[in-house]
Every structure is written in C-alpha cells, then in structure tokens.
C-alpha cells in the first residue's frame, strides 16, 4: 500500500547519468577530432572494465546487479577517467585505473552514493602516482604531429605498444603546454616567449582548447537540464580566472593569463563534470561555492608551484575530504529560524 505523497515527478538516477554521458558527447567528438579516434578505444576499454568490475563487486556484496549496472554511474566514472588519461596509454593502464576507481574508490565504500571521493579522480591519482612516466606522455594534437596514425595503428599502439614501422614515439607525442610552461619558466624564459611556440593556440593549448569549449557546451546543457547547479562551475571558473588574473597582473612575465588556465588541462572537464559529482561533493548552495573555489585555488597552486603539470585530480580529492566540514558549516537558514 502506498503512502503520501502518492505522486512523484523526478528523473531517475539512470536518466541523470544518461544526460551526463550525453553532455560528454561534444567533448568526446572534439577530442577525437583533435587527437585521434583512439579515444573511442580507451572509452570502450574503460566502459567494459567498469561494468565487469561493478558487476563482480555487486555480486560479491549481494546487491541487485542489474539495477545498479543500469544506473550508468559506472560508465560515467569510466568515461571521465578515460578522458583524463593520456591517449595511447597502454591498455592495462586504462583497465587498472578503471578497476581501481570502481572497486576501491566506489564499491569498497558501499557503492553508488557512498563514496567520499570522486572515483574517477581516485583512479587517475593512483595511476599518476604509480606510473608517472606513462601518465605524463601526452599525444600531440593531430595538427602538430609529424606522423598520423590510423585507427588500427592506434589500436595496436594501445594494446601492444608497437608503433607502425618508421614512426617514432616522438613524432606523435609532445609536451603539453602546462608542462612546457612549467619547465620553461624554470629555465627563466618569460611567459611571452614560451607562449609564442607552436603548441600554444588562441587561448590555451592548441587543439585542446577546442575540447575545453566542447566541455563547456556540454556543461551548459547540464545546467539547462538542471542536472547540475550553476554554483559549482561558476565558482570554479570565476575563482580560477580571478586568481590567475591577479598573479598575471602582478607579474605578467612569470604568470600566464587566466584564459590559458581556463582552457588548458582538465579545467573545463573539472568545472562541469568532475566537481559536479553529487555524491562526493557538498550539498549546500554556499558549500558548493566554497568547494569549487577551493578546488580552483588548489588547482592553480599545483599548476604554478606544484610538482605536477595539472592539479585538478589532487585538488578535487583534497576538497572531497573537506566536504563533511563544509556541509556542516554552510547549513542554510531554516525557515523561521535565526541564523
């Protein structure tokens, strides 16, 4: 027998996850266009691994396997991780990272709804710490690469590590602008000099800036669909832009402009798809602002002063730790109560 309310009108969890996946499509398309169709291999590999891992653990934990497999949350994690990994990373990196994300970061904590940390970022951070060499070898955008790989060649590269004869690894990889900027600044070059090199584009990295724009479009769709609230992306983008602007204005030769920070690395993916993970994020409106601002600040600090070219993953995980505190101290005023 039912009890009130008898009527409901809510999207299902599955629909929410589906819309997130849909919102990633422009970004994936741009990614494939800029870097190569190999991304589909990585995405597929991550998806299969995620589903198998999820199913095994649900079975072990005696949870309804089908219900939770079809909630699509594992696929969202898989795609976010795949998009964060360097393309052409060997297959086992993808498998290991996805397994870690689903098994350790999600299922061992109780599955959907119970993970305190963003599973994709846990997977990414585990790989980055364990295999730094592989995890920092990024492909060059196709426009910059001196050799082009076909889909089969990309497939072989990912699964066997073997390049077609006559093509060296250097021909298809390059330093990312974030990385390059960091190393060149240490060599006392100025920002102006550094950013005049070919790997820099209109605002950020050549090529990847377009992917960022595509993520932004997908993110706006999510806001319009009320899947994510405006608080998180707005606070993240504003804070990152502001902090970069302040440093840039103080010392333009040393600190690059805000647009570069916004369009480079995983900034846009982070703003709309990573920090917006509801499970590991804060729940209060004010808390969301603080959380996103915190991620932006830590990301900037790691980018500028840290040991890694990008800092999104660590920033998100560090702020995940603060979520209970943030939530507790940003409770909105209840109707009829004093603050």
């Amino acid at each position: 027998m039912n009890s009130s309310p008898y009527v409901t009108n809510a999207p299902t969890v599955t629909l929410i996850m589906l819309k997130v996946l849909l919102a990633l499509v422009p970004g994936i398309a741009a990614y494939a266009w800029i870097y190569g169709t190999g991304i589909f291999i990585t995405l597929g590999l991550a998806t299969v691994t995620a589903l198998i891992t999820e199913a095994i653990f649900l079975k072990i934990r005696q949870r309804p396997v089908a219900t939770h497999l079809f909630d699509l949350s594992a696929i969202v994690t898989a795609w976010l991780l795949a998009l964060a990994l360097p393309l052409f990373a060997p297959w086992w990196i993808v498998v290991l990272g996805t397994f870690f994300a689903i098994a350790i970061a999600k299922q061992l904590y109780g599955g959907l709804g119970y993970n305190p940390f963003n599973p994709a970022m846990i997977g990414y951070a585990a790989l980055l710490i364990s295999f730094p060499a592989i995890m920092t070898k990024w492909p060059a955008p196709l426009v910059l690469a001196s050799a082009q790989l076909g889909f089969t060649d990309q497939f072989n590269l990912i699964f066997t590590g073997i390049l077609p004869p006559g093509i060296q690894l250097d021909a298809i990889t390059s330093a990312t602008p974030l990385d390059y900027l960091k190393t060149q600044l240490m060599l006392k070059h100025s920002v102006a000099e550094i950013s005049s090199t070919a790997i820099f584009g209109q605002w950020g990295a050549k090529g990847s800036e377009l992917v960022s724009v595509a993520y932004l479009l997908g993110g706006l769709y999510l806001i319009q669909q009320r899947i994510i609230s405006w608080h998180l992306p707005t606070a993240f983008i504003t804070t990152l832009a502001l902090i970069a602007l302040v440093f840039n204005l103080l010392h333009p030769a040393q600190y690059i402009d805000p647009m570069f920070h916004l369009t480079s690395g995983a900034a846009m993916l982070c703003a709309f798809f990573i920090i917006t993970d509801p499970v590991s994020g804060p729940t209060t409106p004010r808390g969301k602002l603080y959380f996103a601002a915190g991620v932006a600040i830590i990301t900037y600090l790691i980018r500028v002063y840290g040991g890694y070219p990008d800092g999104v993953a660590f920033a998100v995980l560090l702020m995940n730790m603060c979520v209970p505190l943030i939530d507790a101290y940003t409770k909105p005023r209840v109707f009829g109560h004093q603050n």
Partner: protein
Amino acid sequence: MNAIIQFLKRLSSDAHTSEQIHKFHGGIHPEGHKALSNLRPIAKLTLPEKLTIPLRQHIGYIPKIKVQVGDRLLKGQLIAEAEGGVSAAIHAPTSGTVSAIAEAIIPHPSGLPDICVTLTPDGKDEWTPLQPLDWRNMSLAEINAKLRISGIVGLGGATFPAHIKLVDGTPNIHTLIINAAECEPYITCDDMLMREYSDEIIQGIEIVKHLLGAKKTILGIEDNKPEAIQAMSNACKAQPDIAIKVVPTLYPSGDARRLIHLLLGVEVPHLKRSTELGIQVFNVATIRSIYRYLTYGEPSISRVVTMTGNVNSAQNFEVLFGTPLMHLVAAAGGTKSDDTYFIMGGPMMGFNLPSKDVPITKAANCIIAATDAMFAPPPAAMPCIRCTRCADACPVNLQPQELYWFAKSDNFEKARDYQLFDCIECGCCTYVCPSNIPLVQYYRYAKSEIIAADKAKEAADVARERNEFRLARIEREKLERAQKHAERAAGAKKEAPKPEELAEKHQDDTSDQDAKKAAIAAAIARAKALKTAEAESGANKQTQNTAKQPEKQTKGTSEQPAQDKQALIAAAIERAKAQKLAAAEKSLTPKNVEKVNPAVEAEIKKIDEIREKVKMTTESQTPE
C-alpha cells in the same frame, strides 16, 4: 526549449507580482487535476440510510456524549458537547434516532476504531429550533461561549476547534489571513465554495474580523482558480479593507506559514504561533461555517467534499458528517474499476482510508478514488546520490538529504539538530527524489521515535522522582520508629547516657576527623580490653568491625574491663543497639526529613503539571 519558455514565463509572472508576493524557498508544481471535479456545481447528497458520527472529529479532547441509544434527535441537536480546553461539539446532521453508540473504524491512518454515534435518519430532515445570534451586540465572551457549542473546527484539514482561535489568547490580532490557496492537486472544494458562496464568505470575514479586532484582511488564493478569484473580487467590492492577493500556483502555498510569508513577507519564527505576531489564519470553508452559525444558528453538520479520481462523475458535494464513504462514491457515479482504493486529502499529504466503511468527517476535504494506474507504487529505492533536489524543493529550507541519512542511521540527536521537527511533511522532497526514496516516511519514523523516546524519558523521570519520594518516606518512617524506640529505651534505663557523653557525641558529629580519631582510639581501647579477657565472642568481633561510628556509650562500656564472658556479651549487645540508634539518628535527622519531603512533593506536582501541558500541546498542534 519548453523549459526556456517556461523559465521566461515564470520570470515575467514574478515581475508582475513581485511587489506583493514574497516567495518562499522551494516548492513544486505537481499536476493539478482540478478540472476533474470543478466543472460541476456543488451537489447535495441524498440522505443515507444511516450516519456513523465519530465523536472525535477534531484535534483535542473527545467531547462528552449527551445522547442515549433510542433518543430521537432533530437536525442540529447536540450529540456531544466540548469538554476540556481544546474540544469541539458534535451535532446531529439530520433528524432521526440514535441506533447505536459503539466503536467503529474512523477515517484515520491508524485504522483504529473510535467511539461513534450511529443515527438512523427518519427522512424528515427536521431542524431543531435555530437561534441566530445578534453578534454585533454581543460581548466577545458570549459569542465565544456560543461558538464553543457550534462544533466548528478548521475545515482546511487541521480540524482545530475554531472558538479557540477566535477569542482565547488572541489579543492583538491586526491581520486576518483567509487561506484559499488550496494548493494540493485534485482538491477543489474551496474553489467551488468560493464560486458559489462568495457572499457568505465575505460576510463571514466581516464577522471574524469583528471578533478578532483585525484591521485588515488578506485572502490568499492561487492563480489556478480564476473563477473563484473573480467571484471573490466581485463579492468584496464594497469592502476596501479586504484584499484579495493572487499567489502563483506553487505547492505548498496553502501551508499557513508559507502563506503568511507569501502574503506578508513575515516568517513566523520557530516555536511561535502566528498569533504572537498578530496574524490569524482561517480557511475559507471555516469562515463560511462561522457565518452560517452566527447568522442562521446552524451548527457544523456538513461540509463541501471533493469526490474525485477514478469515479464516473467527479464532483463536489455538500456532505453531512457521518455519511458513509460509499454513499458519496455512489453519488459520484461509482468507481470506474474494482481495484480502487480511497485516499482522504490530497495526493501530497493525504492518507489511505483504512476501510471502505468509514464515514465522512470534518477533516475530509477531499476523497480521491485511486488506482495503481493513477498513482503508481514507487519502484525500489536507489541509494541517495546527494543531488539535493530535495533541498532545492524543501519549503522550510531544510536539508532533507542529511535528515534522511540521520533518520536511516537512527542518529536522532543529529536529526533534531537539523531541525527535523520543522518538517511539515509536505512531501516535496519525495516528489523530486530521483532515487525514489520515501523521504517523508523516514522523517515520520524519526519524529515518532524521538517523541516516543522523550515520553519514555519523561516517564522514567517521573518514576525516579516517585521512587526518591518513596525512599524518603520509608526512611522517615524508620526514623520515627527509631525515635519511639529511643524514647522507650531512655525511659527504661535512665543512667545509660551521661550528659557530658552526649555533649561529646555532638562534637563528634560536627567534626568527622575527630570522630574518626575517637573511633580509632575507642577501637584500640576495646581491643586492649578484649585481649585481657580470656575468651572472644562473635558479638565482640562485630563490635570491633562496626566501631567506626563514634560512640560514647560503647566507649564507656568497653573501657570497663570485663571480668567474665557473659558480661562481655551483654555489653556487646548493648553497644550494637546503641550504635544502630545513633546511626539512624545521624543519617537522617528530623530536620533533614522535613526538607526532603515537601521538596519532592513539589517536584512531583511540577512534573504532573508539565505532563498535562505536554499532553495539551501535542494534541493541539497545527491550529491552522
């Protein structure tokens, strides 16, 4: 695209009304389904074969029954009169004979039976002589006394006796708010009432305003009732002090606190009543009942009920209280299918009727004939993903996702910290939950657990106080007995306690340290004395063990060297007796008893008073 258009529409409508309307947080837009039942006028029901009239149709004490089986009653005649502070009278809805006074299932979620008067109508529908009141020339006290026997309660659903809201404890009311929001889907009884009886409502408002001494009146009505708005506007053209404010359709605008905020921008503070801010709220239907009573002398014997949902001809009916549910269903053309169950109230806050054989009562604003096709049972709940749609929808601005977590883990203290008791159980959170979590049920559970725990604690406190009182009494009686013994003993052997020894004893009493030293000295002396004796006895040992208590008498006896065994035993017995007496005296002087006794009694009285109060407040909650 649709969403964008809707958003722009909402923006423009906000701009239109923003000067007058103060939005509250959250709220939802469930489908109204109002056209099902508001296309036909209010119909009158035929008399049923019998009426089952529950005595308890309101919040508060059960009224005192004044009829017996076999009595012939006229329409409007008193069946039961209000008893106690919060109570309401019950009247015969038609003329007929009392055929039974027995327990029957009443329309309550518990499904428990309650005492009901069964009236078999004689078909004449003959009124008892009615006495219209010349309320303009009556004192407030007189009117209130009359209203107390009117049987009128809040017809918006809370069923709080109206006379209490009208005069008692409502001194400085400046604003009267008429709740005509009717925000729940399906319900149209107030809508139809306003369309058909707008004049009576306006005159009722005049009466209530006069009784309260309110300066202005605002009628709050949702914009999905254009005909009612039109009717009310026409009816109050001559009354400039009655304002009709149209509020956007948003559930739960009809919640009294939400409506006050919408209309006045005032948040009624936590734990306060709106009357403390000079605001009183009445439902339109209650207003009409008050009008009918004061102008025509008609007590509360019927109401307008929306009969809607899966029936062939959904409509509003003027229904006598006690009318069997199925009589009403039949009047609406019967149900369309056999799998129908019945909900009393709206789909957001209503409840399943426990049986098809329940009567219509004062609280029944709407009966929905429901099927699983209309209200699909929710699919299995998924884990909460903390999406905070619930928090966005909560009209009280609570954090439902946190409350759910606390309720689920029985972390009730935390739930209380997060203001669980401010939850109005409107169901907005459940309505928007993607994981199909029955959130409201969790809150109801947590609330009932906390209330039960509080009651258990209170009962334990009372029991503890009672026990303390009992122990004090036992000790007092013991002391009294001991005193009697002492007096008798003093009379028997006068030479035993010497005056100087008594003085020494008092000194010992004042100083514990000295007492200990003295006791030790006494013990040593006794031990020495014993050593000189030839034999040892059990009694002797006991004396040594208990020699901590300073005793002049024992000291005296032990200092005398014992010559033989018998003398020693006799002395030991004497010592033990004296010790017992002294111990009793020391632990509880008469002064001490006097202090404990009335204090405990006062405590118990206080607790009893608090209990009575708690009982009253829990029963009289949600007056609006």
